């Protein structure tokens, strides 16, 4: 690791070109996204008495769910940290573009 003039800031070794792109979903500020099973989705929809139409949406190409292999109509469970309740869950249905 290369030291810089700022304390604590270091540049990883190797050439800058051809370096792996940053993985957005591994960033600390991106909460964990998880694909829900069909049974879980049914339970969720029953719990709130809603259909998928009423769920908030997420674009299929959203960087945070790119590697989950989600299809249109799947539901993503997001575990967010909340300053109020500690942990809160959010559910978003996958849509195409």
């Amino acid at each position, binding site marked *: 690791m290369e030291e810089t003039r700022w304390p604590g800031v270091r540049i990883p070794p190797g050439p800058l070109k051809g370096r792996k792109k940053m993985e957005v979903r591994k960033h600390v500020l991106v909460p964990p996204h998880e694909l829900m099973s069909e049974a879980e989705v049914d339970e969720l929809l029953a719990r*709130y008495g809603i259909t998928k139409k009423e769920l908030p949406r997420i674009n299929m190409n959203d960087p945070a769910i790119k590697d989950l292999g989600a299809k249109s109509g799947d539901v993503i469970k997001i575990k967010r940290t909340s300053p*109020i*309740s500690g942990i809160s869950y959010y*559910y978003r249905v996958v849509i195409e573009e």
Partner: protein
Amino acid sequence: MIPKSIGSIRFRMMSPDEIRNLSVTKVITPDTIGEDGFPITMGLMDTRLGVIEPGLVCRTCGKRVDECPGHFGHIELERPVVHVGYAKLIKNWLNATCSNCGRITLSDEKREKYLNDLVRAKEEGSDTDRVIDRLIKEASMATVCPHCGADSLKVNLDKPTTFRIENSKLTPTDVRTWLEKISDEDCELLGIGYGIRPEWAILAVLPVPPVTVRPSITLETGERSEDDLTHKLVDILRINQRLRENIDAGAPQLIVEDLWELLQYHITTYFDNQTSGIPPARHRSGRPLRTLAQRLKGKEGRFRSNLSGKRVNFSARTVISPDPMISLNEVGVPLDIAKELTVPERATEFNIEDLRNLVRNGPDAYPGANYVIKKNNLRLRVTEVNRGDLAESIEPGDVVERQLIDGDAVLFNRQPSLHRMSMLCHRAKILPYRTFRLNPLVCSPYNADFDGDEMNLHVLQSEEAIAEARSLMSVEAHLLSPRFGGAIIGCIHDHITGLYYLTHGFNELEKSVALRILSGAGIDKAPEKLTGKEIFSLILPQIDMEFKAKICEHCEKCDKENCPNDAYVVIRNGKLVKGTIDDVAVGAFNGKIINEIVKEYGDIAAKDFLDAASKLSLSMLSLMGFTVGIDEEDIPLEAQEQIQEILDGAEERVDELIEIYKRGELEQAPGRSLEETLELEIMRILAKARDDCGQIASKHVSSENSAVIMARTGARGSMLNISQMSGSVGPQSIRGERISRGYEHRTLSHFKKGDIGAEARGFVESSYKKGLKPLEYFFHSMAGREGLVDTAVRTSRSGYMQRRLINALENLKVDDDETVRDPADKVIQFLYGDDGVDPSKSIEGETVDVDSIVNKIMRGE
């Protein structure tokens, strides 16, 4: 009238045939009124378009003024023109289609794909516009039509209404023939909708709105003044006529085209007179005309001014003034207003005699009644003449509109209505004179003062509304703010000073004195001798609390109960044992005791406590007397000399520092330039000088001084204010820096260029009592003006920000299952606020108050 419910509304373009079918007459004459003084047939004021003059009869429906709704006419345009509102869309349609065959310039497979996407988006309920945007973008890229092989060139829009391919202009006629080629199926894909033709966006016929939409006014001189829309229509008709004459006469192409463009200009400004790229059409006087778009747009437009903001009946507005003797949930209503405002009350066998008496009193003798609505919906005005007979005629089922009486539920409101506490439900109390009276305790939620503020009052008209307002909007229900979960209504100014004098220390009071103080709070028993703390305890419910008062001096080691300043409040079993009541205990925006009472005993108890506490404190103050005068802030001569020494010393040190800087010996602060370091250091020295002066001044001002007590208890003012009166006003600043603007390299011509000493950069060494020197006064005004400008700028900006927030959030609601939903029942948040807690019912924002639970258990409850 049969009430009808609207199933759905669809907005779309009108076809020329529809416009003609809707029309009652073709309009051809640009004149309005003939020489005989009657409207010209087939003119803009044709009586078939409706009537606005009394006495005339509409030739279409046979009705008179106010009955005839008005009817549309039409103008046949000699040449078609572009509708400005559709210009951008037309450009997209042209670019996405082939000029030769009129089909979308996409291969069949791609077209199919977009069709599927569109169907899916509709099923998902998501935005179809995004699919259409993508299609148009892709189709516009094509260079050759995949269907007929013709070249597909880019169409440009020269704003506002001219279309151009490469360098040749497309006339509206060209555009129209092109759009006519587009098939109905393609129209749907382009987002136009099935059965709606794109060529309708090129106007061949112009609807003429009814005269009722554009009434002319007759001035006192008998001169007629036409509406702006009529003026514009006259322009259109004139040009249309000239265009026709020229075409018929076989005039050269150039002249015809010029007139055509002029027609386009008039029709464009007829729709929107603020279209960018063309000069606005003006009235003879030079005022820009107010045409269709201007009537609808903006704050003064139809939507915001007439539809969202209607004027209402049963309301009143007047100046407000304080009345500490009424309860905080009452509002004093002037008798004259009470006689005008009414509440409808239905007669039953139980109240019929009372209502008869009210009607018998008539409209002039208060309390009376103004109207009687009989069972057959007949509305009768109560007059001096008929009041007796009308009273006898009342039977159960009739409704009497009686005048406002004490205890009626009314809504009271002060603009700007920034939060829900800006409109609360009070109980009316009819009082003499001409102002609304409100208890000073409720100044804080309304942010009201009495320097001329006016407020609005609305009388509730139905039992449901009254019940709802009483339970949800009452003053008691808003003692705690949903912003921070604490008291927003509480004692202010004199209330706090009064309670300080009452509860500070252990002053014993004679029974007679105590009873005088207590009488205001409605208590008439007291032991022979009692302390101020005991008096205060009489109005406290059974609560237990311990906290530090505002007057706490934050000593290194807190002695708690044994505080030498009596600043540690201990309440045991509803008795004030130790400590002084001040801003922290009962103040608005603080009010720990208020919070506790609301939580433990409910809002009614808290309201009663506040009423009693404010009355106690005011009778205490009026009993002892309380004044402030500027000469109370005078300090002895030697103290003044000390202050002068400090100021001289500071100015000297500033000069020294400048010398050091000039010699280049100043040490640079990290991250700062040399000049910044110097400036910062000077500011520090001068601010310290002011504070030191304040120290000296406060040492020589007694702690019993009225102003000092107000500052320490949090009633009003600060120690800085006092030291500015007696010590020194101190450095003046603009944008957080010393004053540097004005002349070149100096603030005023009195100083040498480059002088950055204390005096030259706005240091005020005088005190307010001593008086400011002319230059100091000037600098002080500069800093004062900055404050005024800041508030002006801030209010407009935060107002606009609030408007945008409200427009975005106004439709959201918390559902029964504590989810936040939009009107389509879509979930926005799965649990309201992530914890499902109403912040106004929380404990200063926290869901659970662990401390107080622990304390309770420790005390063994």
